[in-house]
């Protein structure tokens, strides 16, 4: 039987009022902001840095051999999340998540910008819409 799970999709980061916190640096100076280069990473959320100017969350990822490495994902500041009624509690330590992310431009393999976060229960948070390279 094909059970269709409800999907909650929350959008951050594209309609928010101007905030000084937002203006930090160029996305493309740190990440390859190109949908063709999105990486998909699945693992267990291990830590959250709820700080300005960007939050970071960390995901422990196991490779085929069982070896674990920790990825760091960057995203918009806490005030952005709050404005959508999303609190840090959304990111639960120990929960399995899948992140679609822009890789770090400097080649750091385990650093990326979280564009879309998929939670195990079917919820999805899209923090950005569209492909930034198309809107430059």
């Amino acid at each position, binding site marked *: 039987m094909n059970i269709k799970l409800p*999907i909650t999709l929350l*959008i951050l980061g594209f*309609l928010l009022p*101007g905030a000084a916190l*937002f203006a930090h640096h160029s996305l493309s*100076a740190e990440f390859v902001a190109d949908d063709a280069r999105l990486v998909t990473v699945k693992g267990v959320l291990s830590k959250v840095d709820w700080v300005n100017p960007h939050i970071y969350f960390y995901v422990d990822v196991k490779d085929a051999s069982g070896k674990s490495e920790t990825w760091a994902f960057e995203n918009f500041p806490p005030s952005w999340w709050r404005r959508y009624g999303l609190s840090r509690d959304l990111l639960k330590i120990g929960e399995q998540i899948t992140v679609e992310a822009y890789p770090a431009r*400097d080649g750091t393999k385990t650093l990326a910008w979280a564009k879309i976060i998929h939670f195990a229960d079917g919820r999805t948070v899209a923090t950005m*819409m569209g492909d930034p390279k198309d809107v430059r």
Partner: protein
Amino acid sequence: MFGEHKSLALILIPLGLSCLGGITANAQFRGAPSQAEIAKAKAAPTPRAKDGHPDLTGYWGGPEARGEVKVSTDGKTIELQIATPKGILKQQAESGNTEGRARRAATEPEYKPELLGKIKTLHDNATDEDPTYRCMPEGLPRIGPPTEIFQSPDAVALIYANHNLARIIPTDGRAHDKAADPSYFGDAVGRWEGDTLVVDVNRFNDQTWLSAEQGYFHTEALHVIERFTREGNTLRYEVTVEDPNVLTKPWVLNPRTLTMGKAGQHVIEDPPCKEMDQSHLVDKYHKAP
């Protein structure tokens, strides 16, 4: 820049209007209040302190909810549907993170011609040059109006949601402290002109920009005059900026009208600023790609 979300929003909203898939969820967002909302808030009685001055006390961060964003998804394709009245939709599209930009664009400071090259260089290299990129304070007028105000007979406290900042403005008739060290938010004194609180600020350091990402630097001669006028449950915030060393004339910012937030609402702690990105930046100043 992250600022290109303006384009992002403008591109995506028309997409959303032709939304096909099932609506699965919504999110609320915040924007500038409509003219009708402002008129209604203005019509409320203006509370006064015992000394007869308008009481500016309140949370001036409202309103928060501006409608709904309904979202549908079709495999990898994400589309939007904005289920708000058209006026709000347009307003949101024009605001987004660009609300501040639009406001600034309405009036821009006029710099001495010989300084325009420096401003462009600073702007082009904002990743390195903008002090806030390294978690330094915004200063005035960049930080904008306070989010919350407490008023007493001899001082007014301006509380900002950003960076847990409070500015205490004496209103007891004192003069500026000529010995004050130059600082990010300067030496401020307040006085009442009719029903308007006028805050005069000098003794700034030169370590801030006047606005975000434009390279609008200033010198220690910066002089900022802020005016707060309460009408009902609205607060009009006006700013004039002077710096004869760099500006050809005073810069009068586009006024803003704030509205009162929900009863009982207060500024909450802002997480600290912890810069972790600089070591990963790749541009002409940083690592080669």
